[in-house]
């Protein structure tokens, strides 16, 4: 059962327009009316293993939708998987279907990168993550795609009792970029952290949408997303937390905070808490604003040029999200990656 409609690139009738409630801020149909031609197979560039190369682990690579090796993986024990979704296409479309299962007690780090080359392509990524009892999975996503492509990633995450799931998505947008996460949360000690950061300039668009469904008692979810938009860029945050009947003792918190640094930038936020249980603690906070003019002047007065003052303040604003990544190696890679884009 899925709350969010799943795309099928071969079937144009599955492309949602803004009349579909869950897609009202990201009108895919406006840009894509017909099924795109299938992208040709391409070879993976031999140099470089992606932004997380230095952290080692095993690579799981898809190029234009085709797995270089396997498209599914079962993980036991402690492992790092660099999931690289590579697009090398001009005006065509491709779809990835990947599945990773973490066995009971496994400790898995998924370092996912969306690496795009070319122009005007359509990429659809369908990712299924299963966490068995007591498994611990951290998924970190970095996107780096051209500004004229359409890119939709739909992740379905299923947790068993006592599992821990940590996610941080860092999005740099595209013509339309949407990163969906749907979490099936069984409670009973299962714990979810679902974070995001977006930095958008030009006319880029990024949409971070999530649905967390609390099905059982005593489950926790903590969500923090922060974003910065410049120029005519547009950021979208939709976060939905559902607490089903009987899921008492649920503790769920959601925060989304954005800065708009230009006259014509736009941020659309839709936080939703849907609660059918009685004994729960749920809260959400949402703010959209600009940089503090007093702080900017103070920093300039001490010698920082305006651009540098802005970058330092926006960096500090976003790093709150990055600081929540518990593993040092990827945290520092993401920090540098983000700092270079401010």
């Amino acid at each position, binding site marked *: 059962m899925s709350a969010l409609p799943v795309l099928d690139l071969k079937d144009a009738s599955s492309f949602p327009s803004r009349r579909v409630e869950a897609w009202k801020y990201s009108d895919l149909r406006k840009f894509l009316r017909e099924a795109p031609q299938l992208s040709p197979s391409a070879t993976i560039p031999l140099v470089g293993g992606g932004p997380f190369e230095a952290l080692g682990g095993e690579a799981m690579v898809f190029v234009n939708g085709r797995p270089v090796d396997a498209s599914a993986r079962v993980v036991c024990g402690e492992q790092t998987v660099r999931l690289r979704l590579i697009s090398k296409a001009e005006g065509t479309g491709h779809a990835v279907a990947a599945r990773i299962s973490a066995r009971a007690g496994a400790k898995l780090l998924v370092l996912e990168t969306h690496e795009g080359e070319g122009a005007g392509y359509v990429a659809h990524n369908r990712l299924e993550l299963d966490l068995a009892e007591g498994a611990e999975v951290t998924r970190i996503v970095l996107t780096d795609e051209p500004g004229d492509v359409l890119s939709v990633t739909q992740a379905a995450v299923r947790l068993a009792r006592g599992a821990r799931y940590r996610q941080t998505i860092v999005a740099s947008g595209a013509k339309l970029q949407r990163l969906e996460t749907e979490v099936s949360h069984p409670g009973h000690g299962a714990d979810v952290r679902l974070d995001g950061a977006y930095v958008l300039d030009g006319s880029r668009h990024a949409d971070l949408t999530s649905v967390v469904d609390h099905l059982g008692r005593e489950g926790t979810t903590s969500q923090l997303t922060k974003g910065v938009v410049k120029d005519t860029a547009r950021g979208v945050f939709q976060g939905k937390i559902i607490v089903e009947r009987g899921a008492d003792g649920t503790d769920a918190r959601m925060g989304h905070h954005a800065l708009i640094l230009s006259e014509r930038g736009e941020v659309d936020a839709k936080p939703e808490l849907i609660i059918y249980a009685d004994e729960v603690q749920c809260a959400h906070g949402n703010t959209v604003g600009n940089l503090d003019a007093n702080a900017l002047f103070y920093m*300039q*007065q*001490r*010698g920082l040029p305006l651009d*540098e003052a802005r970058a330092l*303040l926006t960096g500090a604003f976003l790093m709150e999200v990055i600081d929540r990544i518990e593993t040092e190696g990827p945290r520092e890679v993401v920090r540098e990656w983000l700092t270079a884009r401010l």
Partner: protein
Amino acid sequence: MLSISNLHVSVGDKPILKGLSLDVPAGEVHAVMGPNGAGKSTLGYALSGRPGYEATEGAVSWRGEDLLALEPAERAAKGVFLSFQYPIEIPGVPALTFVRTALNAQRRARGEEEVSAPAFLKLVRAASQALKMDFDMLKRPLNVGFSGGEKKRMEILQMALLEPSLLILDETDSGLDIDALRIVADGVNALRSPERSMLVITHYQRLLDYIKPDRVHVMVAGRIVASGGPEMAHQLEAEGYDKYLPEAA
């Protein structure tokens, strides 16, 4: 030397400074005293280039350069430092990172080499000890959760590290108890030198017992209406500003 002549500054449509003239020669400390609403803080903001404080007439030159033509950061690199009456909190940016970034930005603007991290730490340790500041506090975001006294000490620490040549102190004594005032004043006095000019903006004479001025100016309704030696501060404290206020008030 700092030379201000016939300076008019408006905030929005409202004229605040109305023909202010003042010279501060190199190596001297001048105090500007005046009642609330005289435009004292506006003078500090206008000299440091705060957006929204627009000079509509007059000139300001600092070491022969037209200060009003420069951006705030360019003025800072030329040695202008405004110590804020209410220092701003900068969330997420550790004090150490902030000061080092500022120092290196100024040095780059002047074509000087940047200071390395270890060399900077050594400078900070010495300067923070002199101000009796807890070094660990400098790892916290700048001024966030600092007490009034800690914020003022942080301003003086920045002064000591950035080594400005024109210091503008805006109500530096406000919110300080006697002990903190003495430490802050000692910090300022340590920076007195034949190359530095200081403009001490204050409502009360108290600060001037600790930072002894060479000249005292009385500012009323956006202009300097009287100037004199250091004894003038005591006279003002005893007699108030009444005799300088316009008849209509």
